[in-house]
């Protein structure tokens, strides 16, 4: 799909080039294609321009220039997000943090690091590992995703069952607000009566500003890690094993389930991990910490798996052997990409005890709409990842995908869950927000957004449904997005300029 977007006004382009240099301002439509979608490729929309500042000062000046021109902007890290959150809708300019990729300070004595937002998550751990420390949040995309993106999304990962999500590890944030001013949030203590603005900023999906320096807390590396892989004949049994392990008072570092459809996808791909393809589910259980205690914990978990009907439990302690057990889980998304052209992944979270019931219902929905649904999920914290496999060129299938997707979301909410556990709302789930939040709560969220961004120029169109946000003023009538520019924008099916699912118009 090619969407026409408003051009960058000449004056603004010159100003941006003055700040960051010509090589860091991209306006060529062909080169802008890189920025037209994030990891959720169903949505595409190229930005008006992309700017790549090198540090906080440049970012502040860039944002000030863009804001003064009344043009909306969107911060973007590596574009691995899965909710359309970094999409430049409404002719926004992308402010990409890719060049801000330096670790500014490693304070080993205090187990902290100060990093630029474009530092790749795994690079931070690689840099601290030689000193016996690591950065705990480990989203599956950690080899590509950035700390800045993690902050925006409050990212989780397989090990957040034990260690918690990103917000737990952010000590302070140096932020460029949407008007270009700069403010330091956090690091004042949590019982001072001052508002936890850093906690509020984490997970705000790029709508409150751009974090240009991030102070993170590091943990000592666990002394040892034990990994188990339980093979089950029935998916429910794997779910029961998860409950049994928790009920035993154990808190594994990770508890992950891969269902049969996923196992088969992996085994048929170049990532084949040696999981039996006739198994209904595989459960990865991992314990880490002090070596001395792990053997006993792993033995309890193995017994729990066998009691719940596992036909086989494999165990590993060496790095290579553990990697082999994890392979089927870690490569699941890559493998699925090879059996279907398109993939819609959701990440609703339900109370852990509701998992068996919800999984059965999801299977039913898949059958009813004649869709292939493969499940890979963080079972320990009830965070589901049903993947709907489809081909967006098939319009009728596309429609079934959307309806099934909505139903899955609804049953998860009915089970006491939420619509997103770690991927964020972005563009994709904003219309589902009313399923879980009252109008008063949504309006309270919008009011808080307006405190940070009174003009609505910072990542407009995300998180909250349009009927709550109203028209973002920057888009409605600001100079940069004025009538002359607006005439060049493609008009969506309902008359507004917006990103539309690619499949719907391709």
């Amino acid at each position, binding site marked *: 799909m090619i969407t026409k977007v408003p051009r960058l006004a000449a004056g603004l382009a010159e100003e941006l080039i003055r700040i960051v240099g010509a090589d860091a301002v991209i306006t060529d439509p062909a080169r802008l294609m890189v920025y037209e979608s994030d990891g959720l490729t169903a949505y595409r929309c190229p930005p008006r321009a992309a700017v790549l500042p090198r540090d906080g000062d440049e970012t502040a000046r860039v944002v000030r220039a863009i804001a003064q021109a009344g043009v909306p902007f969107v911060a973007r890290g590596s574009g691995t997000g899965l909710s359309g959150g970094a999409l430049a809708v409404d002719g926004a300019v992308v402010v990409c943090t890719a060049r801000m990729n330096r670790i500014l300070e490693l*304070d080993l*004595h*205090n*187990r902290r690091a100060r990093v630029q937002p474009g530092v790749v998550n795994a690079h931070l751990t690689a840099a601290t590992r030689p000193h*016996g420390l690591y950065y705990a949040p480990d989203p599956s995309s950690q080899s590509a995703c950035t700390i800045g993106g993690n902050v925006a999304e409050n990212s989780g990962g397989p090990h*957040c069952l034990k260690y918690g999500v990103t*917000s*737990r590890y952010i000590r302070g944030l140096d932020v460029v607000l949407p008007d270009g*001013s700069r*403010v*330091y949030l956090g690091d004042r*203590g*949590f*019982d*001072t*009566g*001052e*508002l*936890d*603005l850093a*906690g*509020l900023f984490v*997970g*705000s999906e790029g*709508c409150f500003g751009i974090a240009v320096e991030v102070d993170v807390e590091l*943990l*000592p590396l666990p*002394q040892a890690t034990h990994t188990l892989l339980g093979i089950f004949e029935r998916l429910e049994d794997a779910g029961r094993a998860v*409950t049994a392990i*928790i009920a035993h*008072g154990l*808190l594994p570092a990770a508890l992950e389930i891969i269902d049969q459809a996923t196992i088969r996808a992996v085994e048929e791909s170049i990532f084949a991990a040696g999981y039996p393809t006739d198994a209904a589910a595989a459960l990865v259980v991992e314990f880490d*910490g002090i070596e*001395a*205690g*792990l053997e*006993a*914990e792993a033995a309890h978990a193995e017994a729990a798996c066998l009691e719940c009907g596992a036909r086989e439990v494999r165990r590993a302690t060496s790095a290579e052997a553990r990697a082999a057990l994890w392979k089927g889980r870690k490569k699941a998304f890559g493998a699925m990409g090879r059996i279907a052209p398109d993939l819609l992944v959701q990440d609703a*979270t339900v*109370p*852990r*005890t509701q998992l068996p019931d919800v999984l059965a219902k999801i299977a039913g929905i898949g059958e009813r709409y004649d869709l292939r649904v493969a499940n890979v999920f*963080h079972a320990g914290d*009830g*965070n589901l990842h049903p993947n709907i496999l489809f081909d967006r060129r098939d319009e009728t299938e596309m429609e079934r995908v959307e309806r099934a997707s909505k139903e899955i979301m609804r049953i998860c909410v009915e089970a*006491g869950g*939420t619509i*997103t*556990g*770690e*991927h*964020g709302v972005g563009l994709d789930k904003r219309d589902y927000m009313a399923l879980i939040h*009252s109008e008063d*709560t949504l309006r*309270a969220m919008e009011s*808080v*957004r307006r*405190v940070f961004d009174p003009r609505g120029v910072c990542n407009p169109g995300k*998180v*909250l449904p349009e009927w709550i946000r109203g028209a973002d003023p920057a888009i409605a009538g600001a100079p940069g997005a004025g009538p002359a520019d607006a005439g060049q924008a493609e008009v969506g099916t309902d008359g507004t300029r917006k990103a539309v699912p690619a499949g719907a118009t391709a």
Partner: protein
Amino acid sequence: MSPEKLNGSTTVRDDEAGTERVDGEANPGVSAGMNGGTVVDRRQAAGGAPVVAPRTVEELSTLMTRASRDGRQVRCIGNATSLPPGYLDGPVDLVLSTRALDTVHAYDPADLTLTADAGVSLAQLERLTGDQGQWLPLDPPRRARRSLGGVLASGAYGPLQGKFGTPRDHVLGLTLVTGDGRVLELGGRVVKNVAGYDLVKVAVGSGGQLGIVTSATVRLHPLPVQDVTLLYQTPRLALAVVLARSLATAPVRIPALELLAGHGEEPTVAVRLLGSPEAVEESEHILNVRVGREASHRLKGEASSRWFAALERFEDNAAAVARVSHLPSRLGDLAEPGVECGTVAAHVSLGVVRVAAGTAGGDDRTAVSDRLARLRERVVKAGATFRVSRANIPRWPAPEPATAPGVLALTRGIVDSFDPAGVLSRPGS
């Protein structure tokens, strides 16, 4: 497990002796705005303002809506165990207590989550979850008597933050009645949730500026099989600081690491280890090797938890308590001036030092103020922050540093959006 069963079998109200239930008009000016039947407790009346304990969220919401409309000043005191200094000063028209909101709504041990009203005390939660082999690992000063809502509003924490975090990390969702009476359900009941802006974070620890927490869902943890406290005593403070820092940078995650000094007692570094017996024993070995000595005392099981429970009373009898903080590596710069001012209890891995000065009811009030002022001067010079978190004295030094202008502007905007009439905090405060 049904709420009825929970409440029938386990709910224990805090001591209510002395509480007067008045259904009539205690103060016509204010109670005209109340629903009939609300509990009014005149015993705790502060500066003449009645203390009202709404029994439902709706009652509370009505009170706030009317207070907002009529331009009244309202304060919420939870169980009134640990109010910030000066909280009830100035014109206050109505004081709210959450003690009548005392129901545990849901507890599913298999999900490790619990939903309870703000007025439920942490002691109640401890009994209830303990029966299921679980706990809420949150140990703020005066823990047992505090209400869940009060702890969340204040953000208070204790030594266990070293592993488990502060209240913000325990809360999955909460109900907040805003300054203008809106009832907001924030967050949810599941352990991972990023659906929308995280207003839970901004409500927890806000000191009641945005609204009143009426109930919350918290995440529980399995009770550790083994609980061991190691006490390392040294003759000199400087040695205790070195020892504490050495433990803090050991390749072991220590759930609680405290340094205690002052009052002529031998400085002590306390380490609490939790987990499987094997892991606790191995951790202990690693720590002893690291500091090149054995602990002076080793407490196990209940003796260990009792020792840390006693530490929860550290602030109880002080005339004033100051909190100073710096990078954890700067512990030495804070401990020494701390000991000159009073008794010190430091959260070593966090870099927060509590200093308890004087005794409550003692006659050295001016001396306490002076000592606090000296402490402030010295730690601020070292680059630390200072604030008085409890005070039974008429005057105390101001916090340092003051809030940055940019932060203040955001704070004001957010407070205004939750409490447009400034019912819960004086305008400009």
